[in-house]
């Protein structure tokens, strides 16, 4: 066995592991450290009040906790508080852009450009927008190694009809790390707005959204050790200021008349209704926790586990992995299939050994079609995983082959 590249050992911080699972489904949702659970618990026990409008001390305390979390989340991502909008999840963040920016700027004959490796969250909002506005949705191809081609991007942009480019930073199926700053720069040069779906990237590598340089960057809290119900949209200030609101209601207004209203300033203009306050506080605790480990260390750990997984799975007869072979080019997720056993059966047989993997289309049906498979099995990692989890997976897969008489 190759020596351990990292000695990260934080499993004791995650209460769920008392149950002994080898949890290999963090690309779907991560587990939560005690620090996050306690921050939310403490918020409800000691500091709960509605934010922004209260005069009394308790309301001010709740506001400070929530807005303090926003500031730290913004700093963590290389953004600022005013341009860091809390949403329900990445899906809502992308929809916000599709509705509030897309409906004003995408029209008949225009094009929206995405890729074949997108999650449904980064496909369906654009399908809806395009069909509403008479625009065309186009897809960049994914090569056999799971990569995009910047040449193809250049060619499509040169045709001059693309208004918006939206690309996943790290694929939740292939693991591919896409060259998002190059993509954003090329989109800008061609006069198109860029959106990056960072749902799998922000949780596992150092991302500086200013450095990425896209107009919008979306991610989701629950994959980054945070709670469900909170996501983030970072946006370029000029765009956010010029955009109309997404949802209307309380909190997003400056004043309301009988016929019309004026809107609140950023970021609250895009946060109608009472926010997910405890979840915001929880997300703040999650990024504090990740920051404490250091995102370089998190990335090194994921890279090591990915490398080790590719190695161990490579020993299994009839097993094929998808995505780039080089662990430097991929995040902590490995999709695979085993000849003669459907992924659903693999996941069931792994579950019997206490190994949690995902089977299915991973909300990426167009990509599955491109790969020519109905579904894949998928193992994905976070800070609490170790090589022993991967060994347990490899053993469970060997056992599954025996059950199937292979």
């Amino acid at each position, binding site marked *: 066995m190759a020596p351990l590249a990292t000695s990260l050992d934080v499993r004791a911080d995650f209460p769920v592991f008392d149950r002994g699972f080898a949890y290999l489904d963090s690309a779907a949702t991560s587990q939560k450290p005690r620090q996050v659970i306690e921050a939310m618990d403490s918020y409800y026990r000691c500091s709960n009040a509605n934010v922004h409008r209260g005069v009394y001390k308790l309301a001010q305390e709740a506001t400070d906790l929530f807005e303090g979390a926003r500031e730290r989340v913004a700093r963590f991502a290389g953004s600022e508080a005013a341009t860091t909008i809390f949403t329900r999840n990445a899906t809502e963040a992308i929809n916000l852009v599709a509705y509030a920016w897309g409906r004003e700027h995408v029209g008949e004959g225009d094009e929206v450009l995405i890729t074949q490796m997108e999650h449904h969250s980064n496909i369906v909002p654009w399908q809806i927008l395009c069909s509403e506005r008479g625009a065309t949705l186009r897809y960049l191809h994914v090569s056999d190694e799971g990569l995009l081609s910047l040449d193809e991007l250049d060619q499509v942009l040169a045709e001059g009809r693309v208004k918006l480019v939206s690309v996943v930073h790290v694929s939740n199926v292939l693991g591919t790390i896409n060259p998002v700053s190059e993509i954003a720069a090329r989109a800008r040069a061609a006069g198109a707005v860029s959106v990056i779906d960072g749902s799998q990237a922000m949780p596992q590598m150092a991302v500086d959204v200013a450095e990425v340089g896209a107009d919008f960057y979306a991610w989701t809290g629950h994959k980054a050790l945070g709670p469900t119900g909170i996501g983030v949209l970072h946006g370029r200030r000029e765009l956010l200021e010029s955009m109309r609101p997404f949802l209307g209601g309380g909190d997003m207004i400056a004043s309301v008349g009988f016929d019309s209203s004026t809107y609140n300033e950023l970021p609250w203009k895009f946060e109608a209704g009472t926010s997910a306050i405890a979840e915001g506080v929880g997300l703040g605790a999650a990024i504090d926790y990740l920051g404490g480990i250091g995102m370089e260390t998190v990335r090194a750990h994921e890279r090591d586990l990915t490398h080790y997984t590719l190695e161990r799975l490579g020993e299994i007869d009839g097993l094929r992995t998808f995505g780039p072979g080089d662990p430097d080019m991929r995040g902590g997720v490995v999709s695979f299939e085993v000849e003669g056993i459907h992924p659903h059966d693999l996941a*069931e047989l792994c579950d019997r050994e206490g190994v949690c993997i995902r089977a299915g289309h991973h909300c990426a049906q167009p990509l599955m079609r491109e790969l020519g498979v109905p579904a894949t099995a998928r193992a994905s990692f976070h800070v609490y995983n170790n090589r022993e989890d991967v060994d347990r997976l490899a053993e469970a897969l060997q056992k599954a082959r025996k059950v199937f008489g292979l």
Partner: protein
Amino acid sequence: MDELYRDYILDHYKQPRNFGTLEPHDLEAHDHNPLCGDELGVHIRVDDGKIAELRFHGQGCAISQASASIASEELIGMPVEQIGKLDADWVVDLLGISISPTRRKCALLSLKVTRGAATGDASWPE
């Protein structure tokens, strides 16, 4: 022997009976299980009010494929009228294994498409 993946289940999975397409056919339906992407279609030829020939096609997990294969042997010869009366227990009993809630739709898919073809009712059997 495995309690779920019994020899006869794996046998039907690896060598499914009555699989393929049927041209011409009188009845057909096609559906999928959104949970895991199992896909199954059926072609039926009717003679004298009875299922004379039937072919399933598609791809899926061992449970959905074995369920189709095993059901096909019972369905051939059955009056079309009777298909609408078959319920979930019919397939589950045929399979002869205990099905967890997460695998239930895999087991029921074959009856769902067959009922869809025969009656137009595309709901999940109960």
